[in-house]
């Protein structure tokens, strides 16, 4: 067998191979593992007399969440409406919908927006076990609402930056 010799070019190839191999063998950086579940997935505000029911409460929503591999990072659950409540050409501004939530903290109350994702809950570190919170949405009732079946959607987003 002829003696092996490493030329300058071969040394470069070998170095590249070793570097790539070391990347493969190095422990992969672990991303946060987030779980978010909302139930029920549909809520309805029932029509009511604005004089006797100035604020219509929808059935409560249970938010279940879990945050792992986030030892020192922060996390947040935010809400963003996809738009105003619409029924054909009729609209009810989504800002007429507010929410209360518990427990506080990490949950907090707020007003829905279709342009800004607003914090529903926030914290730091891991939430090892699935944890729940309760959210109740309320619609400010008004005689100015025109008859119709309005709808929109609200996106709950759990983020661990």
């Amino acid at each position, binding site marked *: 067998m002829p003696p092996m010799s490493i030329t300058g070019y071969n040394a470069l190839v070998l170095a590249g191979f070793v570097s790539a191999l070391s990347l*493969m063998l190095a422990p992969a950086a672990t991303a946060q593992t987030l779980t978010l579940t909302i139930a029920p997935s549909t809520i309805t505000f029932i029509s009511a007399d604005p004089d006797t029911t100035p604020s219509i409460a929808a059935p409560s929503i249970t938010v279940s969440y879990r945050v792992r591999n986030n030892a020192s990072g922060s996390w947040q659950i935010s809400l963003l409406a996809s738009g105003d409540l619409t029924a054909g050409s009729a609209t*009810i501004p989504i800002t007429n*919908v507010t929410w209360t939530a518990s427990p506080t903290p990490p949950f907090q109350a707020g007003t829905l927006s279709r342009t800004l994702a607003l914090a529903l809950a926030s914290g730091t570190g891991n939430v090892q076990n699935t944890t729940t919170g309760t959210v109740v949405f309320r619609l400010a009732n008004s005689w100015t609402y025109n*008859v119709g079946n309005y709808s929109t959607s609200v996106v709950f987003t759990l983020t661990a930056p």
Partner: protein
Amino acid sequence: MTPARVLVLVTAIVALATTQGLGAATATSNVTVSVTVAATAKLALSSSTVTFANADPDTSPSITATEGAITITAKGKTSTGASIALTILAADDLKSGTDTIAIANVTWTASGTGFAAGTMNKTTAQTVGSWTSSGSRTGTQSYALANSWNYPTGSYTSTATYTLTAP
């Protein structure tokens, strides 16, 4: 490209692909929000009686109601662009035993957006107000009786029914 270079390149790509990035992790869930707004009408009057005091027809050819102006609040929910109407219909003429005063002698003036003046009628409902789309409207209605020497003495009464319609 030599096989060796290809091997290095492929290996590097695979290595990078198996290393997770450290960007923000997210999880999302949607909730559908629905609102049912049903047709509703609600009417409130500040007084349920209207009284005309006896007066000299020469000095008081028109007798205004003792109660003054009645405040009317008409609230209604209807479809976008649909009409809401407030009407009044007298049950009969003013009667005192067998004596009568024609109900058409009772008129009213009105104030407030959408409210209209009119004359009482016992056969056809008369418009007191009309509006477009949902809302709460407030106005006043001031009744007057055309006085006359022809009215026999007596205590006359009648009733009238207001109807607020929000289709």
